[in-house]
């Protein structure tokens, strides 16, 4: 049951057909893990906090740097040189004090990925390195949890949602490690922000049952010219990650 305060806070979205009080209750009982909380993850976390998700599990190492501030929208100028995760948690709590947050001052790695993902119903992959993405994908498959997969480069953004047993996984999409990806890439905050909103909507749809998530569909949007395309992703029968795991 939603409280009066929750009903008042979320009244504009409660009116969305196919969502309603039931959708809101599902959101408030759900937990989402997001790694990392940079340009992309910041906005995913902020939108999910605003929408009333119950719990966020956030992983992001390091201190706020000057170069973060064009897109890490949870980071503030007064927090330069101090831990990013503290700033993110503070900003999210300011927006939604009901939110339960686990903030970890580390990036996803082999030692923490299982513990982090076990605390969540849905994973949002917003990591800048493929090593982190593959680790989360492996846990998503093993634990049977949906993972919203989103990435950007320059003015282009892409998103799909993996659901173990129903769809392909990240290793089906990228069976070969993409050696050519570089940690540093050109991007505007408005690009990561647009993508973060789409990814947050994917998580909301998966949790609440609203609409149709991008299952086996990759949405690619180029903000340079306003063009978009959708492509079908296929499961590989020989996938090293998902082929042998029973749904």
């Amino acid at each position, binding site marked *: 049951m939603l409280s009066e305060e929750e009903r008042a806070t979320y009244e504009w979205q409660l009116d969305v057909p196919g969502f309603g009080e039931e959708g809101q209750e599902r959101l408030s009982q759900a937990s989402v893990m997001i790694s990392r909380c940079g340009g992309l993850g910041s906005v995913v976390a902020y939108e999910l906090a605003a929408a009333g998700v119950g719990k966020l599990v956030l992983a992001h190492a390091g201190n706020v740097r000057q170069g973060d501030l064009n897109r890490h929208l949870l980071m503030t100028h007064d927090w330069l040189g101090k831990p990013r995760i503290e700033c993110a948690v503070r900003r999210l709590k300011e927006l939604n004090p009901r939110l339960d947050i686990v903030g970890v001052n580390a990036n996803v790695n082999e030692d923490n990925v299982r513990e982090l993902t076990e605390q969540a119903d849905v994973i949002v992959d917003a990591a800048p390195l493929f090593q982190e993405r593959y680790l989360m994908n492996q846990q998503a498959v093993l634990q049977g949890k949906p993972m919203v997969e989103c990435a950007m480069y320059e003015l282009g953004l892409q998103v799909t949602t993996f659901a173990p047993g129903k769809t392909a996984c990240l290793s089906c999409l990228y*069976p070969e490690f993409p050696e*050519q990806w570089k940690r540093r890439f050109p991007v505007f905050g408005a690009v990561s922000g647009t993508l973060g909103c789409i990814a947050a909507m994917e998580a909301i749809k998966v949790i609440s049952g609203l609409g149709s998530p991008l299952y086996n569909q990759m949405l690619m949007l180029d903000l340079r010219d306003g063009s978009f395309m959708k492509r079908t992703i296929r499961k590989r029968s020989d996938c090293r990650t998902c082929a042998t795991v029973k749904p």
Partner: protein
Amino acid sequence: MKITILLWGQLKSLAEADSLELEVPEPHTIENAVGTLVKAKAALKPMLVDENDQPQASIVVFADGVQVISREETPLSEGMEITLMSPISGG
């Protein structure tokens, strides 16, 4: 054989074009389409082919909108739309 190539990720930036028409001589394979493309757009070479001039294994290929699982088992056909995607991980 004439096909259309659509580019995504760094490939689109490097080519400064999102699509191009390509006349692919025989054999009508994805491998040959990539080889023909690299000749037409040299800027794509570092991303598209390896040191042996073979198509990079990590490039994702979609044929008429659907991901190609086996490049060898997917022949080109007249008017086919091939999308080439370099994996991106910006977060």
